[in-house]
């Protein structure tokens, strides 16, 4: 489908420096829409969540959702932005069938938040500061559904249907300044930025932050300039890149595509590009020039938004600890190595480990169970680790039994089997499955005697002072006791009996 010529990634870097600009749209999880009282929820029968205002009926008027303003300010503050003392909404005028008023109520030269940054941590631990130009409030559009034709795209369709349920859902658009100098790490920086912005949004609790459902959407602007010149080339804007992996791939693809064109003496057409998740390529969208004229002007139906400084301070107090800072603090508290910490975060188990420790388990034991045991099981069954049916409290309870000598690791694994199968609490499972360790000297002594009898040569070695040989006898006892013997006490009994 694509006939683009690509230069290899390495060759493109030999000749060009990439510059990126990322525009991320975050759909807020407010109860109601940006400018009316309709529910702002995902799904629903088409056109069931609409009213005169979000349908743009003649005469209807918008009213600003204060909760959305608050969320916008909290995002701005978390991104180290200035919060405007006074700002307005503006109309962005253009015709499109899924836009009820044929203008989008947005913000133009007076965004609610501006001049901030997000420090982004790369795989190797390197920190890259991404400068934020602005975060502004706007409303989402409706959704067009193209019916008929082979592709479901507008070309070749018999007709189109429009669902306005999404029209008017509050969006925050977060725009970076040009990200330059990241060179071969550009794709990784782009992905890490979107990933860590998403984490931040999750920590703030202002959005569902589901990229697969479009509640976070990224547009990737990319341009190349001859290496070392520090200038900015002509950019393309790849729209609606809807997974973290795709962000990385789209940057890489556009770098290689631009490089091939520029290297061949061609020039880049300033345009939007469509990202194709399945084939991993971009295709031409519509031409886009800086002269695109949206005839912005201040929205006359809305009064200016002028958040008091007291409100801003109050919101600063509600900011959660930022994810990266929190990771640093926890790593230190827990004494994890960088690798251990990265694995924990990478497995999506940070919160689970944190809660398990809070429930009483040691950091290393919490990490061990979640990462070595439960992560493997989740992986095997294709589930999210959090969806296994095992809670942090369960893991802490299992570890407490281990610490008390009632379980060993092998038995503990059987308890996890029971937990995943929904057999009850760890204590109930231990009781029901008869998993507790036997440390009663009577029962153990009989098993030890049996083992000595069955392995006279090993017993002789121990009698001769080769205490290290006790392992073989312990193994025999464990086998006899189906793993439920207290291995420490068994050793003591063997040595008592033979020396």
């Amino acid at each position, binding site marked *: 489908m694509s006939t683009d010529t690509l230069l290899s990634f390495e060759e493109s870097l030999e000749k060009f420096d990439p510059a990126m600009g990322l525009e991320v749209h975050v759909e807020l999880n407010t109860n109601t829409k940006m400018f009316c009282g309709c529910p702002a929820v995902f799904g629903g029968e088409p056109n069931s969540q609409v009213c*005169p205002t979000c*349908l*743009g*009926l*003649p*005469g*209807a*008027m*918008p*009213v*600003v959702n204060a909760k959305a303003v608050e969320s916008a300010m909290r995002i701005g503050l978390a991104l180290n932005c200035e919060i405007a003392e006074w700002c307005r909404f503006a*109309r962005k*005028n253009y*015709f499109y*069938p899924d836009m*009820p*008023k*044929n*203008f989008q109520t947005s913000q133009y030269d007076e965004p609610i938040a501006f001049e901030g940054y997000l420090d982004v941590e790369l795989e190797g631990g390197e920190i890259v500061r991404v400068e934020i130009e602005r975060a502004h409030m706007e409303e989402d559009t409706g959704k067009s559904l193209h019916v008929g034709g082979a592709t479901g795209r507008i070309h070749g369709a018999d007709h*189109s249907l*429009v669902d306005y349920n999404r029209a008017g859902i509050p969006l925050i658009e977060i725009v970076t300044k040009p990200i330059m100098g990241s060179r071969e790490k550009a794709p990784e920086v782009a992905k890490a930025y979107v990933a860590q912005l998403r984490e931040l949004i999750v920590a703030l609790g202002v959005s569902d932050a589901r990229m697969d459902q479009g509640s976070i959407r990224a547009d990737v602007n990319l341009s190349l300039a001859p290496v070392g010149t520090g200038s900015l080339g002509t950019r393309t804007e790849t729209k609606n890149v809807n997974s973290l992996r795709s962000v990385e791939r789209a940057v890489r693809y556009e770098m290689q595509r631009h490089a091939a064109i520029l290297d061949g003496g061609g020039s880049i057409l300033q345009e939007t590009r469509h990202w194709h998740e399945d084939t991993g390529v971009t295709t031409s969208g519509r031409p886009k020039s800086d*002269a695109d*004229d949206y*005839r*912005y*002007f201040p929205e*006359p*139906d*809305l*009064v200016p938004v002028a958040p008091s400084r007291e409100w801003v301070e109050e919101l600063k107090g509600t900011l959660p600890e930022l994810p990266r800072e929190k990771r640093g603090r926890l790593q230190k508290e827990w004494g994890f190595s960088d690798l251990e910490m990265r694995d924990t975060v990478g497995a999506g188990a940070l919160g689970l480990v944190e809660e398990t420790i809070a429930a009483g388990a040691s950091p290393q034991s919490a990490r061990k169970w979640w990462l070595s045991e439960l992560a493997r099981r989740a992986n095997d069954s294709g589930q999210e680790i959090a969806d296994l049916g095992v809670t942090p409290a369960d893991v802490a309870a299992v570890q407490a039994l281990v610490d008390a000598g009632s379980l060993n690791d092998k038995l503990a694994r059987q308890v996890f089997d029971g937990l995943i199968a929904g057999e009850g609490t760890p204590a109930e499972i231990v009781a029901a499955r008869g998993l507790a360790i036997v440390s009663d000297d009577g029962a153990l002594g009989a098993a030890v005697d049996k083992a000595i009898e069955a392995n006279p040569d090993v017993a002789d070695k121990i009698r001769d002072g080769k205490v290290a040989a006790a392992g073989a006898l312990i193994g025999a006892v464990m086998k006899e006791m189906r793993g439920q013997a207290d291995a420490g006490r068994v050793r003591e009994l063997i040595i008592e009996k033979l020396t």
Partner: protein
Amino acid sequence: MTDYLRASAADLVAALEAGETTSVALTELFLDRIEAVDSAVHAFLHVDREGALAQAAASDARRAAGAPASVLDGVPIAVKDVLATEGLPTTCGSKILEGWIPPYDATVVTRLKEAGLPILGKTNMDEFAMGSSTEHSAYGPTRNPWDLDRIPGGSGGGSAAAVAAFEAPLAIGTDTGGSIRQPGAVTGTVGVKPTYGGVSRYGLVAMANSLDQAGPVSRTVLDSALLHEVIGGHDPRDSTSIKEPVGALAEAARQGASGDLSGLRVGVIKELGGEGYQAGVEASFRESLDLLVSAGAELVEVSCPSFVHALAAYYLIMPSEASSNLAKFDAMRYGLRVVPDGDPSAEDVMRASRDAGFGDEVKRRIILGTYALSSGYYDAYYGQAQKVRTLISRDFEAAFEKADVLVSPTAPTTAFKLGEKLDDPLAMYLNDLATIPANLAGVPGISLPSGLASEDGLPAGFQVLAPALADDRLYRVGAALETLLEKKWGGPLLAQAPSLDTGPGGRVGRSAPVSRPPYSTTGEMA
């Protein structure tokens, strides 16, 4: 027996309270009058006989139970077709909205219904309120009851003519640059543009959001005050609506009617008079000033030097906002849809529908506004116009330091002939010279009849402007002047208007016999 047709709304209320008549009887009386004269006047685009009578019956039941919903409960009213009315057509005088029936009521309409005023129908207007003559209605012009060959003013010519022709005791208008006051002036009626934000704009199909304001149309100052109290006040659906309560406006009118204006400083705006103003209009204005002085007012001359730029600023801001407001009329969701031949795209349908659905004046303003907002021109046009607007507000502030109210003729001329200025947009725009500054600054204004111009015997209007939120001053001064003028005339000015008495067949015969009324009715629409 009282002539209820020509009585004021306040007198109708008194008759209802005294049990002398019923809301149903009054509503029928006005519906019959509409049927009799509206083929000649064409004040209405839609008449809702059934709905109005049902509302009237409900009103009578409330009154019989001793629980009227408001002081105006049972008094019928006409509503300009720019306000959304649930279940009744709302066309804004445009073909592009022909047949559109809103699923919701404008807040003003909700308040009228809650207050118990039966809604007779929807009145004619210039398309999307763009005009000063009602000739730009896609459904044909309204005619001035004083002279059926003349314009009733605009854009709210329908509301003013309906009240002047006794087709309704009250009406709602909207005023963006004078569309309530100028029709009031040329039809010998009263019209008030409240303080911007004083009456909710929710459901008012916007021409220019920062200028539009709905307000009362009536035959007396007190009636406007009573209606203003019903429709005014904060509305959470309109962010620009002001929080302050609407105030004791009827009380101010009653106080003013005593005729004592001692201590009141009346500022005469130097820039609104002289060249371009008809001699008879100015003479009538001067006579009214003399009456104010006789009532104890002190005249001061005030200068508002930026007012000379008001018209230019208005014709940038208004079309800019309008060009964006009217973008929603694209045939995708409601209204006229024209599908061109071939395999048209959505954009082709939009283009064809807008081309067929909008009239010339609307297209002119869309083009003007689109141009003024365009990148590279924005600062020079829209930006400059906003600066002028600030200067005009400052002129008002300075003038209101010297005077409690400001006054001028409402319109430079009396009603002109139909067709006279249709091909000369600039001449048409000049009609609003004296009314536009109030819209740009958001201050309230009233127009009331000041007499007949000597050269043509047609009504002239007297405008009173007050500081924002001081709408009560309009009513006090307006009622005082009205009392003095009516004493001089020996009755209301409208008593001197032609009777429009119905000829044979029960209709005013103008030209060819009319086989059906020029307005639609609810029965027809169903």
